[in-house]
């Protein structure tokens, strides 16, 4: 095994909404036929920022194990074009489709995987639908997936409420309206911690759930790898998450919950080596070596 620096390439893809920044991690060693090609779908807003380190470590570990990885920044996020207030769920679905197409073109024949983290897992699950260009995706890797989009918004509403409390406003007055019933497009969005959520994005998030796409005839069942972290002070959950049953019915499901910090929201930038190891092992098990 030659000792060489990992090959990482920064580029802009031409996504429908505008230039989309992405990092491509080439599989090692140079010239190897990749076992798989994985598109990472990052978490929402501040969770994305706090998870950069873990995402980078994981991408590097996968690349070193012979897996190609692409880390795009969704529209309005990170180094991609647009502001966060311009982010829309349908645009994000197009971004994921664009990333998948680009990565497959770089690595023809490599099994394509989507790897979603937190709210990104919801987006990845929807991106599997044929209508969103997901037919070619061979497997799904989930890190701490949210069961419902609304779960992504609760911390933000809580932040607004707490900010109001500490400023001396009574709780009722500090609750910002999430969506108006039947008037989602015209109701106000939400501002919290420097992020402006457009009302359409809020509405879309409130409607999305972690469900597998309907099984297509003649489609090989897609494996799902689902990894959660639980507070080390608590015992491991004895019951699988409620949403896991639907995924187990849609194809082979590997679910595990490891003790570790919730790095996507912790104050310090936490690293969880056990999650990196478990993820790499599970993916390699699902994706045997290939020869060109």
């Amino acid at each position, binding site marked *: 095994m030659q000792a060489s620096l990992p090959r990482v390439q920064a580029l802009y893809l031409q996504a429908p909404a505008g230039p989309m920044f992405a990092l491509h991690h080439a599989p090692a060693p140079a010239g190897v036929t990749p076992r798989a090609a994985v598109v990472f779908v990052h978490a929402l807003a501040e969770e994305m920022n706090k998870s950069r380190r873990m995402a980078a470590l994981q991408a590097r570990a996968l690349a070193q194990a012979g897996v190609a990885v692409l880390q795009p920044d969704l529209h309005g996020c990170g180094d991609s074009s647009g502001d966060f207030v311009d982010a829309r769920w349908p645009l994000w679905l197009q971004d994921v489709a664009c990333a998948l197409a680009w990565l497959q073109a770089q690595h023809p024949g490599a099994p394509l995987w989507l790897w979603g983290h937190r709210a990104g897992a919801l987006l990845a699950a929807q991106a599997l639908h044929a209508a969103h260009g997901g037919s070619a995706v061979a497997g799904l890797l989930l890190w701490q997936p949210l069961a419902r989009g609304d779960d992504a918004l609760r911390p933000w509403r*809580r*932040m607004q*409420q*707490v900010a109001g409390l*500490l400023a*001396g406003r009574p709780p009722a007055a500090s609750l910002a309206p999430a969506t108006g019933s039947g008037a989602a497009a015209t109701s106000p969005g939400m501002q919290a911690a420097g992020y402006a959520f457009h009302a359409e994005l809020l509405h879309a998030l409130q409607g999305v759930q972690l469900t597998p796409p309907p099984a297509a005839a003649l489609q090989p069942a897609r494996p799902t790898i689902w990894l959660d972290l639980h507070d080390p002070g608590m015992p491991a959950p004895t019951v699988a998450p409620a949403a896991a049953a639907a995924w187990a019915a849609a194809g082979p499901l590997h679910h595990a919950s490891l003790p570790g910090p*919730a790095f996507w*929201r912790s*104050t*310090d930038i936490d690293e969880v080596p056990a999650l990196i190891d478990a993820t790499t092992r599970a993916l390699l098990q699902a994706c045997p070596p290939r020869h060109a």
Partner: protein
Amino acid sequence: MVPAAPASTDTLLPLLAALIQQALALPPDRLPAQRDTPLLGAVPELDSMAVVSLLTALEDRFGITLDESELSAETFSTLGSLGDFVSAQLAR
């Protein structure tokens, strides 16, 4: 609900102090595990984002969902007032 007895809050104090220190990345032993240890206003790191992160840490640690509508600024005035709030929630 019956208000939580002070005894149960007292047993929570060391754990709460540890959780706050961890959630706010404070040095260990920064917060004495006593009822009158001041929080809001005395701990500069305790801003609204830190409060949210602390609420989430409490939920994860105890496996409960906290009801924000029962919060007030007084809840966070001391370790004791926070302890009373948490033990009342745990008693449900």
